[in-house]
Every structure is written in C-alpha cells, then in structure tokens.
C-alpha cells in the first residue's frame, strides 16, 4: 500500500487517537458512572447532577469515536469529535491550573492510571495535533470509508 508521508501521519494519528480514546473510554465505562462523576465534581466546573450525566455519557462517546477512528469509518466527523473532546479536556485542565487547584486524579483513564496535571496536558496537546492529522488525511489509508466508497474511488482516490 503506497501513500504520502502525510497519509501515513494521518493514518497513525487515527490509530493513536482512536486507541487512546478506546482505552480511556473502556476503563471509565467499566466502572460505575457515579465514581467517574466524583472525579468530574473535583474540577468544580459543573453541578453534581451535570457531573453524573457527563459521567454516564462521556465514556461511551469516547469509545464510539475511538472505534470509528480505528476503523476509519466517518473518519472526518470522528476526528473532529475527538479534537473537540481533547480540546474540552485541555480547557478543563487549564482551568484547574489557573485556579491553583489540586486534583487527586485527572480522570483521564478512570482509576487505572493517574497522570499528573502537566503530563495530562502534554498528552492532550499531542492527541489534539494527531486528531488534526487524522481529520485532514486519516481516511486515505486502510479505512472503512475508503472501502465503503467502492473500488472505483479507491483506484483514483
């Protein structure tokens, strides 16, 4: 399979962002949503009721977007959604930093792995760049989208 450097970067971005979202989503969705809601509460951005709603929905959104990226299905919308998710995580982490708050757990990967605030921000910044690469070139190599478009477009795409 041939492809330009940009195509390969888009493909790798898809795999990296998709893999990270699937891992984060699966670890959070496997635990009761009330436990993740406690972590969201610690950011002191939304009310306890809203924390519970976010905790119930967010892990599943991460999983579906992550698997879409891994498959390369609806690649551009999925990459845009991934970028939006990562940008919102960055905003939440920055607000914690600006308010000089201490978080016992960033909640990035549920209870499994607790990166520090700095590490979480750096990881999210890299994921955002990779999500952009996936958005711009991610569907060109080994993607469900390419297969779905049919053999004619695959030859010339």
């Amino acid at each position, binding site marked *: 399979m041939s492809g330009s450097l940009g195509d390969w970067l888009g493909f790798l971005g898809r795999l990296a962002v998709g893999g990270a979202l*699937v891992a984060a*989503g*699966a*670890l959070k*969705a*496997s*635990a*009761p949503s*009330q*436990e993740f*809601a*406690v972590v969201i*509460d610690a950011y002191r951005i939304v009310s*306890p*009721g809203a924390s*519970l709603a976010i905790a119930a929905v967010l*892990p*599943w959104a991460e*999983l*579906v977007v*992550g*698997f*879409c990226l891994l*498959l390369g*299905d*609806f690649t551009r919308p999925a990459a845009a959604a991934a970028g939006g998710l990562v940008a919102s995580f960055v905003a939440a982490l920055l607000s914690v930093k600006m308010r000089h708050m201490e978080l016992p757990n960033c909640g990035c990967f549920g*209870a499994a792995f607790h990166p520090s605030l700095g590490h979480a921000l750096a990881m999210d910044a890299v994921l955002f760049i990779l999500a952009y690469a996936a958005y711009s070139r991610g569907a060109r190599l080994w993607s*469900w*989208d390419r*297969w*779905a*478009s*049919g053999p004619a477009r695959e030859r010339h795409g």
Partner: protein
Amino acid sequence: MNRALKRRLGGLLLAVAASVASAYGARGFTGRVEMRIPAPAFRVMGSASAPIEIVEYSDFQCPACRAAEAPLRGALGLYGYKVRLVFRDDPLTTIHPWAFEAAVAAECAGRMGKFWPYHDMLYDNQGEWVSSKDPKVFFRSYAQKLGLKRKAFDSCLSSPEAASSVRSDMQQARNRWISGTPTFFINGRRFVGGNQFASLGIHWIDQILKKRNTP
C-alpha cells in the same frame, strides 16, 4: 440510501458493538457474582420496615469517609425512623495501612455491643490514630472508654472470625464494583462520596418518600 452510506452505517454499528464489548471486557466477569450476605445485626441502625435503606461501604482511615459522616448523621437526624442504615466495611488496604485493623476493632466492639459509639470514636479521632505507629494503643483506649473488657477485646482483635467478617464485606464491595469510599446505596441506587450523598442522595430519598406518600 446509497450503498456507500449503508456500508458506513454498518461500520458505525460495528463501532458501537465493539464499544459495548470492550467496556464489558474491561469490567471483567470473573468472580463478580453479586452475593448479598446480610450484615451483622449490630451494624444495622433503624427498623427493618423503614422505607429507606442506606447501605454505606466505608473505610475508617479514609478522610472522605470521615467528611461524609456529617451529611450522613444529618440525614439520619432529619429522616429519623424512616431510615435504616447498614454499615459495610471496605478498608482500602493498599493506601490505608491501618484501615483493616480499625475495621476489625470496630467489629470487635460491635460483637461486644458498642459498634456505633466505637464507629463514631474512630471517625471523630481519625487524625490521632492514623498517624500513630501503633494504632492498636488507641483502639484499646477507645474500647476502654466505652467500658469494654480489655481481655475480651484483645482476644477478639486477634480472632480470625472478626477479620473474616471484614474480609467478607471487602469481597462484597469488590463484587459490587466499589473502588472508592464512601459508597452509599440508597434503596439500591449508588452514590459515591459525601457530596453526591448530600446533594443527589438526599434528593433521591425525598423522591422515594414522596412516591410512598411518607412526607
């Protein structure tokens, strides 16, 4: 609907199915059969016919559990006879080195008829015994203050039965996917931490009482 869109929607379905499978895969099925072993009677406060049952999984060494005592005691005072409280041990032994010993000490006090006052003493004096090199000294002094016989208390502390009762609760906590304390089940609905209990939990109690016409 054209063929390309159908294929892409098929891919989306595959992504949803993979999401469900991976979440359940990460949860793990082994050894998680939920078994409801009743708590010893001394760890139950309130009437069996109370419309509200609060089951609390707690760790005596956990600061968040201590902080949750205020809203919990407030709720018990507010709802009175309408609430039955069941205390369950879930000492987080990996981060709290004395939590298991404290749970065993409370278990022993309970077997000698003083569970609730001992429970309150452990939380009220948490700052004193958690930083001690030998918290058993404090556990004995609390027992003494409550008038428990020293020899019988000491003998219970080293008995396998008291430790086994705590371990049984820990296993139940694991089977109910509890990884943080305090975790409350109010008529079966889960609330984690004092904040969730104080805001959403109290609201849930009001809802249940309203449905049952028990204002």
